[in-house]
Each structure stands twice: as C-alpha cells, then as structure tokens.
C-alpha cells in the first residue's frame, strides 16, 4: 500500500472567536489549580502550624531585642572565623559522604532490585536498621570499631577516630538504606526489556545501562542524593561522638550554642544560615530535575529479579554482601556484643536492669523498658500522620489538572506553585531538629494550640521529618503511572478521585508501603526534636538511650547498649513485617 505524503497546509483558523476559547482555557486551568490547591490545603496548614510557626518563633526570639530586630547580629556571627570553619566543614563532609554513599550503595540497590538470593528480605530489613538507630548509639558503635582499643586497633593497630573517615563511614552506615530503598524500589520495577531492546540495537551491557536505565533512574538517584546530603549536612549525633573537638557541623554548633552556652542569638543566626543553605540546595535540586520524570514502563518487581548469572554477577553480589557485612553488620554486631558483655562475663544483666525504675538511681521515673511501648505508639501515630499528609502532598504534586494544553499563563503559574510546594515539603529535613523541638516548646504551649500536655506533640514533631520521605518515595512512582491507564478508568466510568483510588493507589501501594516504613523508622529514631518535647514519664527509646549514655558507669553504658539492641530488634521486626505485607499483596479485588 502506498500512502501519499501528507501535504503541509497552513493551520486553519477556528470559526470560533479566540476570546471564547481563551476564557474556556482559563476556566479549565483554574479548575486544575483549584483541585490542586484543595489537595495542598491540609499539608500546607500542617507545615504552617507545626513547622513554620515554631521555627519563626525561635528565630524571632534570638534576633529580637526589646521588640526590635537586631539584624546586625548576623554579620557579627558570620564574620567569626570559627563559624566560617564550621560552615566549610559542614559542606564538604556532606558532599564527600553523599558521594561515598552513592558509590557504595548504588551497586547494593541494583543487587537488591534485580537479584534473588537466600535471606534477601532479612538483609533488606537489616540494612534499614542503622537508619533508625539513635545517632549517638551508632557513633559509639563506630568508636568501638575504629577507635582506641577498637576492633581495627586490636587487629592491625589502625585507628580512624581522629580522622574524618570515621565520620564518612558512619554516614554511609546510616544512609545506605536511603539509596537502596529509594533507587532500588524503582529499579526493581523497571522493565528489563527496555535494556534488552537497547542491547539488541547494539549497545553493550554498560552502554545499555547508561543510556536506558540510568536516565530512568536519574530522578530517584537525585532524590536519594539530595536526602543523603541533607542528612549529612545536618548531622548531629555522629559528629558529636566521632568528630571530637576538631570537627563540628552547623547542627552541633547550634546545639552547643542553645543548650550549653545558652547563646540564643547565635543559635538563631546559625539556624537561619542552615535554613538558607537548605533552601539554596533545594532550589538547585528543583532546577536540575525541572525536566519531569518521564513516564516509565513499570512492571511487577517479582518478575524482574533472578538468580545471579555468570562470574561477574556473583562477584557483584559478593562485593555488595561484603560491603554490607563490614559497614553495617559489623558495627551492629559490636553493639549487640557489648549489650551482653556484663561485669561478670556474658549475660543478660543489663536487660534485667531495664525492667525497673529503681535500679537506675533516679535516671528514670518509669522502667526504661516502657520506652519500647512509647516509641511504638508514637511511631505508629507519626506514621499515620506522615502518610496522610505526605500522600495528599504527593497527590497534589502529581495531579494533572485541567491546565493541560490550556492557557499557558495558568500552566506556568501552576508549575511554579508545584515547585514551591515541593521545596517547602523538603525543608524540615534540612532544618535543625534542635530548633524545631525548642520551637515546639515555646509556641505550642498556649491557646489556641496548647499541646504541652498532649501526647500528640511528639508524633507531630516526628511526622514532620517523615513527610518528606513519604513524598520523595511516592513522587517518582506516582509520576511514572501511565496517564492513559487513568483515562481508561475514566472512560469506564470512574471519576477522577475513583480513578486515582482504583488505578494509582494499587500501583503505588508498594511505594506507599516503603514510604510508611520509612516514616515509621524515622519516627522511631528521631532524637533532636523529641529530646526537647518528650515528657519525663514517657521517654522514647532514643531519648532513654541518650539519658543512659549521659550517665557515667558501666551499668548505664551496658543498659544503653541493651536498649539500643532492643530498638534495633523492634525496627528489624517492624520492617520485616512490612516486607511481608508488601509481597503478599496480589490480585486484590
């Protein structure tokens, strides 16, 4: 059959007046923006009340004197060479940690996404455990590994605690899971046939990966890198323990100025600096990922994984397992070993001591063991809040409103709105937790928002850090859902909301589970803000650990290790349950 080449004709003019059309476009664009705003309203209100207000209040307290703003203080503080040094160190260690984490964890993400091997689920949960460990505990574990009298010192006489390497490795320890989960979650669902198509077209194995898979993964990698950078930029506990007097990040400096020197003005300036730095970072991120996540062919993750084939793949698996063992399992093992290493040889001495408040010489009003129950209920509440707020936010960010193909002005306005909102959601990650916690204390204690005595205060603060995780995990997957599946549902009679529930939700159920797991884990491990607002009679696990570590004596140290071990177990069990929920999900109707 021969098809005549279509002749090019000048585009015809509509019989309808352009004015009427533009009005219709505007209406459609307005409808799109309106439904987007409706979805945004709840997350927006949440952030205004529980983030912007407390942070603003604490900043105002530091910079206001006698009702007048004292902006001169900013120059004074920033001119200080010590602060300059802190700023420089904060930045470069964050960059180095991010690079090192990506280098070590991307192969891990691949292995977890594409290979089947015995114990994979357990291991996936295990690598997530560090993420929820109180930073102080992990710091001590690394000290026991790399410091004076540590394992490396005993074996080869190597000590790293005086170098920045200890900090970098501890940061990898914490953030390995961020990359494996964020990138691996998407990688597992990428259709391998895309890469096969490239191979058939003559691309080598690496070229196919670089040209096909990497671009598809890029948004997820960027998201993971951003998160790791933010975490390490605001790193606190690790630096406290391993940095010694030589190394301090902004967050450590803010804590010292607030809690030890009671120098609120300097702390306020540093909080602002940290906030600004994070804003710049988020702006750069928004600019680089401006090109939207492309629609990807997502397939069932279970179908893409296979047993490793050939020497190369086995070597890769072995390499990743070795890396996980040395970087993650070893410090955790040291932790467990220490929790049993009592004064009279190995035994559950420290665990027994946790059962009563009396054995602790007044450190606790209640038995430390109760902290487990507190942590779990706080964590569940925080997860629920984070999933609802983050889910609404992610939905608002992916909504393809009536602005499509409509008035350009409206679409551009909506785009700016979305990017601004997107950035706002990430701010809590980069904001000093110390500032947020302290801000909660001084703002939410009077009507109309008198939450001082309410248990919800702690979950609220924890959810604040959980929401960005939910949004970041959901967004790439939500955006990758083929818009035509939604259209198919609409043609079959599903309203937009129903289509979202019937099509998007089941497809992103996996991402939702991952997001919930993250939010739960973050809540369990949150320390900086919780330590300010948790009531003495209901401490969370990390707070209890910190209190024990703050006291001298072998019994307290041992109990801290025992409690950390239990926290680790709680996380591992919770995450394992989550993994199971995730794989049992099939054929819902």
């Amino acid at each position, binding site marked *: 059959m021969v098809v005549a080449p279509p002749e090019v004709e000048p585009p015809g003019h509509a019989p*309808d007046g352009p004015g009427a059309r533009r009005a219709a476009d505007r209406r459609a664009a307005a409808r799109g923006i309106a439904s987007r705003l409706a979805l945004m309203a709840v997350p927006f209100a949440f952030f205004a009340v529980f983030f912007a207000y407390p942070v603003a209040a604490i900043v105002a307290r530091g910079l206001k004197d006698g009702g007048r703003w004292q902006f001169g203080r900013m120059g004074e503080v920033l001119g200080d060479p010590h602060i300059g040094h802190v700023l420089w160190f904060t930045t470069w260690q964050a960059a180095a940690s991010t690079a090192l984490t990506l280098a070590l964890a991307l192969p891990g993400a691949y292995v977890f996404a594409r290979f089947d091997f015995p114990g994979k689920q357990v291991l996936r949960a295990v690598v997530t455990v560090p993420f929820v460990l109180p930073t102080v505990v992990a710091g001590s574990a690394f000290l026991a590994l790399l410091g004076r009298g540590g394992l490396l010192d005993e074996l080869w006489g190597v000590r790293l605690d005086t170098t920045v390497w200890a900090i970098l490795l501890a940061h990898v320890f914490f953030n390995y899971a961020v990359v494996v989960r964020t990138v691996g979650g998407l990688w597992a669902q990428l259709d391998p046939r895309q890469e096969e198509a490239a191979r058939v077209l003559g691309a080598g194995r690496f070229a196919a990966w670089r040209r096909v898979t990497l671009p598809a993964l890029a948004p997820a990698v960027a998201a993971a890198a951003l998160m790791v950078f933010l975490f390490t930029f605001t790193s606190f506990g690790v630096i406290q323990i391993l940095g010694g007097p030589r190394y301090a990040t902004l967050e450590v400096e803010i804590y010292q100025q607030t809690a030890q020197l009671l120098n609120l003005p300097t702390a306020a300036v540093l909080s602002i600096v940290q906030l600004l730095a994070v804003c710049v970072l988020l702006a750069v991120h928004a600019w680089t990922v401006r090109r939207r996540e492309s629609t990807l062919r997502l397939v069932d993750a279970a179908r893409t994984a296979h047993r490793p084939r050939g020497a190369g793949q086995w070597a890769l698996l072995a390499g990743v397992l070795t890396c996980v063992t040395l970087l993650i399992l070893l410090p955790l093992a040291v932790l467990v070993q220490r929790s049993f290493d009592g004064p009279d040889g190995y035994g559950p001495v420290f665990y027994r001591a946790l059962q009563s408040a009396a054995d602790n010489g007044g450190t606790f009003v209640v038995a430390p063991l109760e902290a487990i129950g507190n942590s779990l209920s706080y964590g569940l509440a925080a997860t629920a809040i984070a999933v609802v707020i983050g889910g609404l936010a992610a939905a608002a960010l992916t909504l393809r409103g009536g602005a499509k193909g409509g008035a350009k002005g409206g679409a551009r306005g909506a785009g700016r709105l979305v990017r601004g909102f997107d950035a706002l959601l990430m701010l809590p990650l980069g904001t000093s937790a110390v500032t947020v916690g302290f801000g909660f204390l001084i703002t939410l204690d009077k009507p109309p928002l008198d939450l001082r005595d309410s248990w919800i205060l702690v979950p609220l603060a924890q959810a604040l850090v959980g929401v960005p995780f939910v949004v970041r995990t959901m967004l790439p997957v939500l955006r990758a859902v083929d818009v035509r599946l939604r259209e198919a549902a609409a043609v079959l009679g599903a309203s937009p909301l129903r289509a979202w529930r019937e099509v998007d939700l089941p497809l992103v159920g996996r991402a939702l589970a991952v997001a919930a797991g993250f939010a739960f884990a973050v809540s369990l491990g949150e320390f900086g803000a919780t330590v300010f607002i948790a009531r003495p009679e209901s401490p969370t696990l990390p707070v209890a650990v910190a209190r024990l570590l703050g006291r001298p004596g072998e019994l307290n140290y041992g109990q801290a290790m025992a409690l950390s071990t239990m926290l680790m177990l709680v996380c591992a069990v919770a995450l394992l349950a989550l993994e199971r929920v995730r794989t049992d999900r099939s054929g819902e109707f």
Partner: protein
Amino acid sequence: MALLRLDGVSVRFGARTALDAVDLEVAEHETVCVLGPSGSGKSTLLRVVAGLQRADAGRVTLEGRDQSGVPTHRRGVGLMFQDHQLFPQRDVAGNVAFGLRMRGAGRAERARTVDEVLDLVGLPGAQRRAVGALSGGEQQRVALARALAPRPRLLMLDEPFGQLDRGLRERLVVELRTLFSTLGTTVLAVTHDQGEAFALADRVVVMRDGRIAQSGTPLEVWQRPATEFVARFLGFDNVVAADVLGEAADTVWGKVPVPPGAPQGTQRLLVRPAGVRLTDVRDGLPCTVEARTFRGDHVALMLRPGDGPRLEAACALRDAPEAGARVGVAFDADEVVVLSAP
C-alpha cells in the same frame, strides 16, 4: 436521530491542527470506521468524543445532548485503547468488571456479565488469569470485553487490531462484525488499515490532516474514491492528469475511456489495476513489464510506458508475462474514476 454528532469540532496542539472543523454523524447500531494515515487526527477524534481531549471549537452531542462540560466518566461511552491499557494489577475478571463496578453493579451481576462477555470474545474461563500472562490476541479480547461489559451506548475502538498478526486479525474482524450486529452496538473505530475498515464498517470515513476527505459505504469509497489522496491512500497509484471530453480523456497514456456523465475538462484520472488490460504490443499503449508480484489469486504487474507515470495492472496467473516482456495496454471505462480536486 444520530447517536453521535460532531459539529465543526476543532482541536489544535500549539500551531498544529489535529482536527479541523470536523462534522460527523454516527447513527444508532451503525459501525463507522475512520480511516487515515498516522497523524491525520483519528485518535484525537476518539479522545474528543470520550472527553479526554477538549475541543477548541465545535460541539459533540450524544443522543441529542451537548457533551461540553460532561466529564469522561459520565459520558457512558466505551473506548478500547490502541495498546489496551489493561490494569496490570488486576486479573482478567477484575479488568472486565471494572466498568460495572463503577456503575455500582452488584457482585452477582458482575460475575454473570463477566462470564457472558468473556464467552462473547472467545475467552471463556479466563477470569482468574493475570493480564501480564496473556498473549497479544488475548489481551486484545480482554480489552474488548472490558469495553463491552458496561454496555456503552457508543463503543470506540482505537486501532483495534494494530498489534495482531494477520490471521488473527482477519478472524477477529469477522467475529467482531458478527458480534456488533448481534448486540446492536454502535461502533466508532479508527484504523490506518483499509482492509480492516472495509471489513468492519457500515460506513467508512477517510481523514486527512484533521479533515474528512470522504465518507461513504466501503463499496462507494472503494469504487469511487473522491480525491487523489483517497485513491492513493487506498493503494491506487494509476493516477494521471487528463483532459476529459465526452466519454474519453486525453492523457500521457493516450486516450482513456471514461464512464458516462463524468465531469468534463481538466481532471485527475484513476485507472484501477483491474481496468488495465493487457493486449498485444501492437494494439495498445506499449509498455515494458518492470516487475511482477504474486498476490495469491492474481499477479500484480508494474508496467513502464514510454511516457508518463508507471501503471499497475492486475492479471490472471496463467496470462502473466515475464519481467522484461513488452506488452500493450488498453483501458476499461468501468474501472476508470474521474477524481475531484485533492
């Protein structure tokens, strides 16, 4: 009354016009096939009717009711997507029952309808199968079943046989035609394949660059392509400039007889291959046989005359000359069509 009516519907994507003031009517129980090359606006037409694409101008009416402002899910039309768009997380029954659930049908009714529709499309007992495990043809059937199950007042098919192999495609076309006439379904299909269109449709609408080039029964369109574009799109390439006077036309191929009542003057002329008759080289237009293609029941010959465009001729197997042979050509007035301006 027409079930579906489009009045001056236009859609523009930036500077490109996908639909340009299209008027179209589909009567109840009628099967209309929109035929056109890719990029001619066929799919956009379906999307406008489904409400997935807003028209920049014009009006879509279904059963006499203006559909502007009616969202897709309230239009009560069915659309089978080109690449099916089956819901990957649901099994076959889950996909087919989707539309029924949206209409609030009860469990028993859903199960019964799913059984019925799967029987209709020839996949009985496939309810619990995963859609990912189906072959292309089976996916096609499931997509069709899903579109049919809620009994839409208008069923739209976007390249319904695009990804199927030939044998399956031909079988399905026949099955569908029977199915639609049994059910009395009103169908609006789009395809780029004339064979499919002619086999499936009561009426064929040929589109070009967002406009309707011709509309008629398959026989009408096949026998009397209205323009050179339609003729060439249908695969007829024996088109030549002609000066028509009475019942004959002057062309570079010499005198060609035209049917009585043909428009006079300068025209474009189509001679269907069946109307190109081989004669002795001394009796007709002398040509060289450039190529011969075996077409099953006949042989297609590509002939090079001394002057003017090449000619395609259809001739019986036993009469077919070898490539390189010299033959003469005469024309049958019955197979000659005078085309109107493009």
